[in-house]
């Protein structure tokens, strides 16, 4: 083994996470194990968003010397399934440890067949190294609920490898023989053999730098769902390698407001020609839109039927469909704020309300007939514009339990119900 590889082994960590979930009308705590890799001497650890999310309440890192230190979440980006942690450096210094960071390699030059190693903690088996090859260096897939219900995969392609990646490998590095980090192991196909996926270092490096700098990644959004043209060029009378097909336009989105619709072919975005012939070419196009500052007016050149038209679309900030969650424990209700994306998807007028994501049997919410999936719009005739409205009502109920009026909606049917003490 190379010296670089031995050094890399010192940079791989095990991450023990305790996190809270607002399920079945209450707070539930659970523990899980993942992997990570130290990427700076001042304690930056890169891992998966599905390992360390804002739901984490305790993060412990096991170093190569088997000693445990604490860490905190710097930021996460479920879109690329990446999260950045910072090890408590005061503790590291006090206990006299020295961190040995790993270095990124170039994921762009990887070729199928190249030997790679996955290092991590599969099923809690600390410091496991598995070997395989790059099976595909440019795999495209999107998952709208992939990261604990959050969207992922729109802005990056993946490295596919046959190095064994099991639960617990998540967040660990995929490295070349010289110990350079070319990917962050993320997921495998359940029930398949040796189909593992990793986020390429090129994506990981950018996301990490921006999370370290800003704590968040802000992307622009216009609401276009692109589709690969494949061999529809003939049908649309397009020169080959030109344009991207609009498969769908999110209702109420900037693109919808701007007049775009499904079946349009986008030829250029902000003056830059786009080519979306194959699915693998879609993430860079999505990134092109996302990279503009929020509020940018984008000029889109669009082919519709025989004519070519220009559309102006003002970008807004990309948001997840998953809103903030909370448990109203006296009522036995877990709720999630209606997000802008959720509201549009379900054709609500606005983002008023919370979605019920769990009900505890026998509690007032259950007794009142509230079920998972219901949307609570008003409480005591006050519109639920934020979770705080509900929290305040819940606090008041905790102090003095009084009949409380809810306005709920289920499949567009509105009912009034009472939460009874």
């Amino acid at each position, binding site marked *: 083994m190379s010296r670089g590889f031995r050094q890399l082994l010192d940079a791989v960590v095990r991450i023990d996470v305790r996190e809270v979930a607002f399920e079945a009308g209450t707070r539930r705590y659970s523990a899980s194990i993942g992997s990570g890799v130290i990427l700076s001497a001042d304690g930056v650890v890169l891992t998966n968003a599905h390992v360390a999310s804002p739901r984490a309440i305790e993060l412990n890192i096991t170093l190569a010397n088997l000693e445990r230190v604490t860490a905190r979440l710097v930021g996460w980006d479920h879109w690329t399934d990446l999260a950045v942690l910072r090890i408590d450096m005061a503790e590291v210094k006090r206990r006299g440890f020295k961190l040995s960071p790993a270095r990124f390699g170039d994921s762009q030059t990887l070729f199928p067949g190249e030997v790679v190693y996955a290092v991590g903690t599969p099923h809690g088996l600390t410091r496991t190294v598995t070997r395989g090859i790059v099976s595909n260096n440019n795999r495209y897939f999107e998952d709208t609920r992939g990261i604990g219900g959050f969207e992922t995969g729109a802005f990056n392609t993946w490295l596919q490898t046959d190095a064994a990646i099991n639960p617990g490998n998540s967040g660990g590095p995929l490295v070349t023989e010289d110990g350079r980090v070319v990917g962050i192991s993320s997921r495998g196909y359940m029930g398949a053999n040796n189909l593992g996926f990793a986020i390429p270092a090129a994506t990981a490096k950018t996301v990490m730098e921006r999370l370290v700098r800003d704590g968040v990644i802000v992307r622009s959004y216009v609401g276009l769902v692109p589709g690969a043209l494949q061999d529809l060029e003939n049908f649309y009378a397009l020169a080959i390698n030109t344009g991207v097909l609009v498969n769908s336009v999110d209702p109420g989105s900037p693109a919808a407001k701007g007049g775009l619709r*499904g079946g349009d072919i986008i030829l250029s975005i902000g003056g830059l020609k786009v080519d979306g012939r194959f699915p693998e070419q879609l993430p860079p196009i999505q990134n092109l839109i996302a990279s503009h500052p929020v509020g940018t007016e984008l000029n889109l050149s669009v082919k519709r039927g025989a004519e070519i038209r220009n559309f102006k679309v003002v970008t807004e900030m990309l948001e997840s469909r998953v809103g903030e969650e909370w448990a109203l424990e006296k009522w036995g209700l877990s709720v999630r704020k209606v997000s802008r994306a959720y509201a549009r998807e379900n054709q609500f007028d606005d983002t008023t309300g919370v979605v019920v994501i769990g009900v505890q049997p026998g509690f007032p919410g259950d007794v009142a007939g509230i079920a998972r999936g219901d949307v609570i719009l008003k409480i005591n005739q006050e519109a639920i514009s934020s979770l705080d409205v509900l929290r305040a009502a819940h606090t008041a109920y905790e102090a003095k339990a009084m009949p409380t009026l809810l306005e709920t909606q289920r499949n567009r049917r509105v009912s009034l119900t009472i939460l009874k003490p």
Partner: protein
Amino acid sequence: MTSWRRPALALSLFLPILLRGAVDLPTLWAERVKSTVAVEYVTETEIARQPTIAMGTVVDEKGTIILPSGAIDPRAATWQLKDFKVFLPGSAESTAAAYLGQDAFTGWHFVRADEKLWAQLKPVTAFVREGAARSLALADPVWGIGLRPKEEDFMPYFLQSSVALVQALPRRTGIAQQEVAAPGLPVFDRDGNLAGLAVAAFGQSYLQFNRSGRAAPVILMNVEESSAFLLAEDMLPFLGRIPKNISGRPLAWLGAYGLEPMDREVAKFLKLQSTSGAVISEVLEGSPAEKAGLKPRDIILAIDRQPLPRLKPERVVVAFIEREIERRSPGVALLITVLRGTEQIECQTILGEEPKLIREADRRHFDRLGLTGREFVYGDAIERRVKSAEPSGVVVHYVKPSSPVAVAGLRLDDWIREIDGMETKQFSSAVEQLAAIEKDASRSEFVLLVGRGGETAVLRVKLN
């Protein structure tokens, strides 16, 4: 002296009742079986002819038969319903019949048997006792008729029970202790007077045990026999509601969508005490409700200043309001009192004509492509939350398995927005376009843009 006379007095009081008890049930039964028939019809779809059998009651001298509302699938277009046939109980011979349509208010389907059968039928109205239809009392015996399956020649059989409960649902409904008649067939009192018409049975809760002794609750419904029946007083006045045409129109329409009952606790919270009510979820675009100024979240409290009755279960109030609309005709005024916020408001509405229903929508089948397209109607606009004035076009009504469109991923209820890049604004022009593609043997592919949920998808259909 008085002591020995008492038994004699008692005897004279009981005697008439004993005499009445000696009713010749088999004779009454044989006579009344002539009011019952089995009706068979065929629902024709793109690939199949599905026969259905329902039980019906003869209501007049002209061979008019009523079938319960559930006898015909509400999604089926009237032209899909074919080959109506009437079977007399115990007979393998059938006589042709005509479908007359459904009455919106009662829900009954009307069928008329061919004239040659009329002499063998007996209208159930012949068994109405002179004078007002009396209400049945608790524990009164009631009996009715069931018909065996077709392979047993619809052999009639006797069912008997007693009245357990009479309830407004909102129609006055008698509930017997056991099954008393096949749904759609009449129920009689002990003297053979018409007591009512059996309706679909209620679900019965049972526990189902598996081998390991675990129990799971199940609801079972007897589809052949029912213990629930509509009382004669809530049936007889409506026997004449024979639809003027097969579509059952005119149909009164308010356009207040998604009525949900207001429960007792909510009424108390809103300081309405014992008032009954129903929340309006949505007010439909361009509807009479919208024109009258009704708003979503209004709580309906009264109709024509009559407070809504308190019914059990509470959701029955919704059926009550629907019936109040259905019993009226388009153009009739309806004064609706609602609670909006803390204010009671009266809205004068003029009922309108129900927009074209899905079952009335135009359809066209394309065998080579493998789909049936259906005209986009008002209900589609409501379901998809688009303005009904927006371009409409075609909704996919049927996809033939393994056909070109099925392989391309077209699904039932997809909304075809574009065909070969052309927007489908009208049903007629869209089906012409599809017909042209179907006819053109040289075509190897075409492209559809379809709407599904809030999204669209481009589908490429390969032909041959």
